[in-house]
Structures are given as structure tokens and as C-alpha cells.
């Protein structure tokens, strides 16, 4: 790019002034920053106030629901459950508070004969049932609501309905309701009674307060500086979920997620993970048919499973709108069946251990572990979903919860690091009272330990060379490298001071390959070299040649990544072997 073109026009006078040898002062313009509005306090008059001469206002709050994302409006509205009710006087002051019950009903008193009031049912709750605020954006922090006016001449009964068309504010209430569903599920399945069977199983009561940002027609991808593709996400390090409300103002034909219960619960699953478990996921994009970082695959796989557990349905449905097929066509959606393997992750063709790198293999494993037998509505003989050879496991959800959240035999324990399905299954095998998941592990190509990722190493150890496949199609870049086939990942604790890691290459087969060595810091993103402690990525393809790094490193956990790649693009060998040495001593896998 021409450097001059990047020069703001405003800089030209200054440039000229400098050239001509005189100076002038530049007025600095302060652009006003929009202040972030504080989040309004929860209704202050709870329990509800009573009045000496009252009228009673009762009512029902409900919300409409659209099938398949933005399809037809369902005939029967759903109740707005356990949500906040505010009553405002003419000046906007809050004079009364209430909450809807489990059927959407509410009731409160107002002083008789004192004029009209505004009744607001809000898409937020902060009670023993659910804690979540569904708001418009992180600047306004304005919660969604429906409202109506009520007089006080006599007692009255109201029916308030959030519409699924027009303002589509029903979307906000559906999000709140699905979060309530998740809390109801966890209270039932991680109760004291359910947890009693597993030592170290934390009892669930109600999840911490979650902030959900959603606006009809708005794509939160804007916050990521992204393109037009619709996206929902959980923001790690916060309690914030961002749900896709449509694209470019379109709530009728574009992709939206406010009625996609799978997506809402998936993102809330990440929130539950952040609140009760721990994650080492580097985040980033993921797709069902891709081999991805096992830490990411675990986090996403759990979130997929969580939505199935809460809904009780063995399917992950993401609706996509119908914008691509025009007016009149039915709403499009994508289903991932949690009972049926796909061609790309069928263990019949997938190598053992590859499931650790595939999110839906993990989702199916967890679902198979807890799903009821037989599942209602599933087929008879021959239906793979009722293949009892794979349905021998019947673990309570509390067993999953114990590993997921446990500080003793679980992800919250001090020994947990580089959390992936391998580590989860290592813990699961050690849970007292836990079931044997060997059949479902094998079905999904999952190892019961960390042999495929973050493999612990014994130093000094005694072992022969380790083999590593080389993907002939890779060009040596991280993007093209297959994390499962082309890479080995060894977890190593370094007690500070000098650290020397060396790999010695040996050729397998008739064609030489190349070997690279990368030592990643804990928390790394694969391929992001800024996260590497050190690398040695020279061309090394003759027997006995080495890659070595020697650094002084602080104490901590590191990931030693041995990467195989073709010696020349497209012409590499298909396998190699190597020996690993740490500070001069042989290092051997010890999963």
C-alpha cells in the first residue's frame, strides 16, 4: 500500500507547515465516549408489598414461540416462568414487585382508587429458580419486557403475551426460559440425592447470574468485528452470552438463534462450564466434521451434550433461516444426531483416539452414557439408536457432573491441566461407583486416558522410538497440519531453570519426512507462535538428525509438540519415528 494513501488529509497542513519551516498548534478533538449504563437493580419490593385498601391484580404472562427458528408461530404460547414483574406509577417509580410462578401466573396488590399503573413483565429473573438477565446490548444494559396498563378501580386479571413476530420480544423470554430449563435439569440431576452416590459430587442449587445480550435482528458478530455470518457465543472471562437475533434486521428469513433451544443451551453450557468446571479451551471456530484441538473439542462437545441432556432429545438442531432458498420455502436447519455417527467420525473408518479431536464424538459419548433406554420415539430392531450393544451404559448425570466439577476426581482438581476428553475419561475411570464406559468409548474412537493429547511423559524413561504419521497433503503449515495424525502432544512440568528438549528423527518407509519441534506454553493456541516457548523447525529428514530447543524457562506446565510434515510439499513420507529427550534424559509416554 502506498504510505501516502494512509496519511489522513488532516495531516497535510501539518506536513506543509513542517516543510515550510513554521509550526502551528493542532487542536485535539475529544470524541465523546458513550457511557455504559448500569444494570438496573432487581425489583426492590420483594416479597410483594401489601396495602390497607387493596385491589388485587392477577394475570398470566406468556410468550409465543416460532418453530424452527423463524418459522410459523406455535399455536400454544409458553408460560413466562419465574420472571420479574414490576409495577410503575405514572412517574415511572417502582411501587410494587412480583414474580411469575411456574405456570406464568402472577398476583399482587395495589392501593385501590389510585389511578393507572404500568405492569411490566421482564425477561429477567434473580431468584432461587433462575438467575439471568436478557438485555439489549452491553451499552444500554436495558432488559427486555412486555407491559400493559392497569387501573385500580377494581381488581383485574391480565393476560400478557410476548409476540414472536414484529418486535419478536418473545425471543428474549424464550432465552430466559431455556436457561431456567437448564437450572431445573441441574437441580434434578445434581441434587443431593443424586450426588450422594458419588464422592466429591457438588450439589447444584441455582447457577450464578448470567447476562444475555440479544436484540431482534442483530448479529453479535458485529462485536467481533466479523462479517455477516450469524453467530452466538459465550464470552470467556465474563458471565455474558451473546445470542444471534437475526441478520441485518431480518428476523423472518435469516439465521437467528433466539428460538434455537440447542444453541441457547449450548452457549449456556459454556457458562455452566465456566461457573462450575474449568476449561482450557483456546476457543475459536469449530465444525462437526473437523479434527480440532482436543481442549476445544471437549468444551464444545460438552456444550452439545448439555443441550441434549436438558432437552432430553438426542439431537442438536441449528436452524438457518430460509434466506438462501427464497420466499416460500420451508425453514432450513441442520441436525446433528447424537445417537448416530456420521461418515466423517465413524469409528469403523476413524482411528482409535481420533474421537478426542472431534466434538460430536465426545457429545455422543456423554449422551450415550446417560440417555434413557429405550429412548422414546426411537425405532425398533435395526435402528442404530437402539443398538443395545452400545446402550449397556446407564450412568446417572451426577457421574458426569462429578468428573466435570469435582475437586477430587474431576476437572477442578489441582492435577487437572490441558483439559480434554482424555483427561475427563481418566478421571471417570477412577470415580468410585462409576460405570465402565469402555464400549461407548470404543464406539466413539475415544481413549480412556491421555495417550492422544497432553500425554504425560516419564523422565527418565525406557521406551523405543515413537511413531508419527505424516499427512502427505500437508504443506508444513499449522493450518494444514492434522492435529491427530501429524502431531504428538506431550505434557511436561518444568521446575524452572534451563530446559533442553531434543527429538531425534528416524526414517520409516522409503521416503524421508521432516520433523519439527515446538514447545508451547500452557494456555497456548495451536499455530499461534506467540504462545510458543521456543521452536525448532528446520529441515531435518536424515536418520539421526535432531531438532532441539534450549531455553531458560520459568516453572510450569508446557506442551511438547512433535510435528511431522513432508520433506517437500506433497512428496513426504507417510510416517516417521522419533526419540524424545528432556534435559538429556529419555522421555517416554506415560498416559
Amino acid at each position: 500500500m502506498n504510505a501516502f494513501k494512509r496519511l489522513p488529509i488532516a495531516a497535510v497542513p501539518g506536513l506543509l507547515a513542517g516543510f515550510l519551516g513554521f509550526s502551528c498548534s493542532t487542536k485535539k478533538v475529544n470524541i465523546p465516549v458513550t457511557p455504559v449504563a448500569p444494570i438496573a437493580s432487581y425489583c426492590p419490593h420483594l416479597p410483594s408489598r401489601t396495602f390497607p385498601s387493596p385491589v388485587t391484580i392477577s394475570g398470566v404472562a406468556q410468550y409465543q414461540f416460532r418453530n424452527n427458528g423463524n418459522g410459523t408461530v406455535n399455536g400454544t404460547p409458553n408460560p413466562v416462568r419465574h420472571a420479574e414483574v414490576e409495577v410503575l406509577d405514572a412517574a415511572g417509580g417502582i411501587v410494587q414487585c412480583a414474580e411469575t410462578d411456574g405456570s406464568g401466573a402472577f398476583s399482587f396488590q395495589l392501593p385501590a382508587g389510585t389511578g393507572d399503573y404500568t405492569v411490566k413483565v421482564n425477561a429477567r429473573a434473580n431468584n432461587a429458580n433462575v438467575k439471568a438477565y436478557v438485555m439489549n446490548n452491553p451499552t444500554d444494559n436495558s432488559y427486555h419486557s412486555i407491559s400493559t396498563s392497569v387501573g385500580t378501580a377494581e381488581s383485574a386479571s391480565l393476560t400478557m403475551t410476548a409476540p414472536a413476530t414484529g418486535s419478536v420480544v418473545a425471543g428474549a423470554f424464550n432465552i430466559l426460559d431455556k436457561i431456567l430449563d437448564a437450572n431445573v435439569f441441574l437441580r434434578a440431576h445434581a441434587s443431593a440425592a443424586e450426588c450422594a452416590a458419588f464422592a466429591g459430587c457438588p450439589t447444584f442449587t441455582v447457577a450464578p447470574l448470567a447476562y444475555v445480550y440479544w436484540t431482534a435482528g442483530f448479529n453479535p458478530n458485529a462485536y467481533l468485528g466479523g462479517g455477516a455470518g450469524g453467530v452466538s457465543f459465550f464470552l470467556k472471562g465474563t458471565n455474558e452470552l451473546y445470542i444471534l437475533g437475526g441478520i441485518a434486521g431480518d428476523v423472518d428469513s435469516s439465521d437467528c438463534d433466539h428460538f434455537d433451544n440447542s444453541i441457547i443451551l449450548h452457549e449456556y453450557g459454556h457458562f455452566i462450564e465456566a461457573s462450575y468446571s474449568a476449561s482450557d479451551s483456546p476457543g475459536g471456530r469449530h465444525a462437526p466434521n473437523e479434527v480440532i484441538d482436543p481442549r476445544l473439542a471437549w468444551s464444545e462437545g460438552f456444550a452439545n451434550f448439555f443441550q441434549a441432556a436438558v432437552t432430553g432429545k438426542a439431537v442438536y438442531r441449528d436452524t438457518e433461516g430460509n434466506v438462501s432458498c427464497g420466499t416460500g420455502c420451508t425453514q432450513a436447519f441442520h441436525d446433528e444426531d447424537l445417537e448416530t455417527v456420521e461418515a466423517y467420525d465413524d469409528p469403523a473408518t476413524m482411528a482409535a483416539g481420533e474421537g478426542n479431536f472431534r466434538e460430536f464424538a465426545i457429545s455422543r459419548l456423554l449422551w450415550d452414557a446417560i440417555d434413557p433406554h429405550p429412548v422414546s420415539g426411537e425405532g425398533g430392531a435395526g435402528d442404530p439408536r437402539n443398538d443395545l450393544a452400545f446402550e449397556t451404559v446407564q450412568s446417572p448425570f451426577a457421574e458426569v457432573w462429578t468428573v466435570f466439577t469435582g475437586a477430587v476426581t474431576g476437572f477442578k482438581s489441582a492435577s487437572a491441566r490441558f483439559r480434554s476428553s482424555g483427561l475427563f475419561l481418566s478421571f471417570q475411570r477412577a470415580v468410585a461407583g462409576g460405570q465402565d464406559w469402555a464400549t461407548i468409548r470404543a464406539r466413539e474412537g475415544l481413549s480412556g486416558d491421555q495417550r492422544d493429547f497432553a500425554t504425560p511423559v516419564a523422565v527418565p524413561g525406557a521406551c523405543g522410538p515413537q511413531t508419527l504419521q505424516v499427512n502427505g497433503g500437508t504443506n508444513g503449515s499449522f493450518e494444514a497440519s492434522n492435529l491427530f495424525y501429524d502431531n504428538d502432544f506431550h505434557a511436561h512440568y518444568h521446575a524452572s531453570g534451563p530446559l533442553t528438549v531434543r527429538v531425534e528423527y528416524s526414517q520409516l518407509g522409503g521416503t524421508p519426512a521432516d520433523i519439527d519441534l515446538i514447545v508451547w506454553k500452557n494456555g497456548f493456541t495451536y499455530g499461534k507462535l506467540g504462545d510458543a516457548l521456543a521452536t525448532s523447525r528446520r529441515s531435518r529428514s536424515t536418520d539421526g538428525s535432531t531438532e532441539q530447543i534450549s531455553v531458560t524457562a520459568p516453572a510450569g506446565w508446557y506442551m511438547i509438540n512433535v510435528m511431522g510434515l513432508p520433506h517437500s510439499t506433497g512428496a513426504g513420507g507417510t510416517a516417521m519415528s522419533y526419540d524424545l529427550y528432556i534435559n538429556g534424559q529419555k522421555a517416554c509416554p506415560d498416559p
Partner: protein
Amino acid sequence: MPKRKQDILRDRRSAAIAALGALMILAIAWIVAMQDLHSLSQSLAAPDPTDPLHPRWDAAKRDPATAIHKIHKTEGVILSEIEALTDVPRVTGAFKLKGVARARAPVSEMRYSWILSENVRVRAGETQGLVAGVKAGDRREFEIELEALAPGPHRVIFRAWRMKGGEPVGNSAHYVIDGETPAAQGAARVPIGSPRSPEDMRKNAVQ
């Protein structure tokens, strides 16, 4: 007759001043030419509705009263501008704008267009149209009512072109409405008031 010493010195000073002046003129001409070439190349570039920030984003000048950035204005046959009819929201909400096209010469056919970025939708008004028989000095107004669905910056652009043989010729004008992000400082497209940068959001977003 030999020149006197003072004459020689004066001649040399005059020559030096002239040379310096010529150099300055050349430099100014070069800078202006570069800017003009840049403007011209931007003006002639086909409008790209997917990248409304394209023209002269770095030259934005913001009117603090209306929160309208005037991005670019070409002194062609048609002069166009935006007027805010209601308060332009810094965050979300409805607002009305008026696009004004003034013809400095007769225009047999003129096209106007509103280009809206994501998260701004039309509540009332036409987003484009064709006007025939515009006389010199005519002022044509095109109102539109919009709604910002989310924090901005809301890139709302009004353009007017003279049409010739069915093709737009020359003139276009670009405006941006926002409330905060000073593009001239090289900031990214951060939604207004978003407490975090897109980089921070991207780093921590778990989809």
C-alpha cells in the same frame, strides 16, 4: 562591465529564493495531485455496498451536533449531503434523515441510494430511486426513517449520481453516522459503547 559584489549577492539570493519557491510549489502540487488522484480513483471506483467505509474513511469529519461523519464529497454536477431530521441515536432507536441532492447543471436522469450497514433497518421511505429532469439549481430531498438495532457505528450512506446511458457518472457522496469511534484515529469498527474491543471479544468468544 563586471557586476558589483552586492549585485552578485542579490542575484544569488534571488536565485536561491526562486529555487526554494519552485521547490515548494512542486511539493505542494505533488501533494495536491496525489490527493486528487486518490479522490479521483475513489470517485470512479464502483460503489461497493458491502464496504461502505471504503471511501476516505480516514478523512472523516464529524459534526458533534448530529453525530454525522462527512466522509467524502465530490464537487461534481450533483452536490449531496445528509441532514438529520431527528436526534441521531448514539446507541439504538429510530431516527429520520434527509438526503439532499442539488444539481449544479441540468441532469436528465439522477439516481439516489441509501446504503445501510448491518443493524440498521428501514422503517419508512425508499432506499433508492431514479429522478428524471432535474434542472440546474434544483434541490431534491429524500427522507428516510431508520432504526438502529444495536450500538453503532451505524454506517448510513447517501449517494446521488448523475446517470448517463444507464450508468452512474462521477459524483457520489458518503456519510457515516456514529457516536463514538473516531475512524480518523485508525480505530477498528468497534460498535458504539461496546465495553471491549473486537480483539478482546474475538480472543475470548467461545462459540
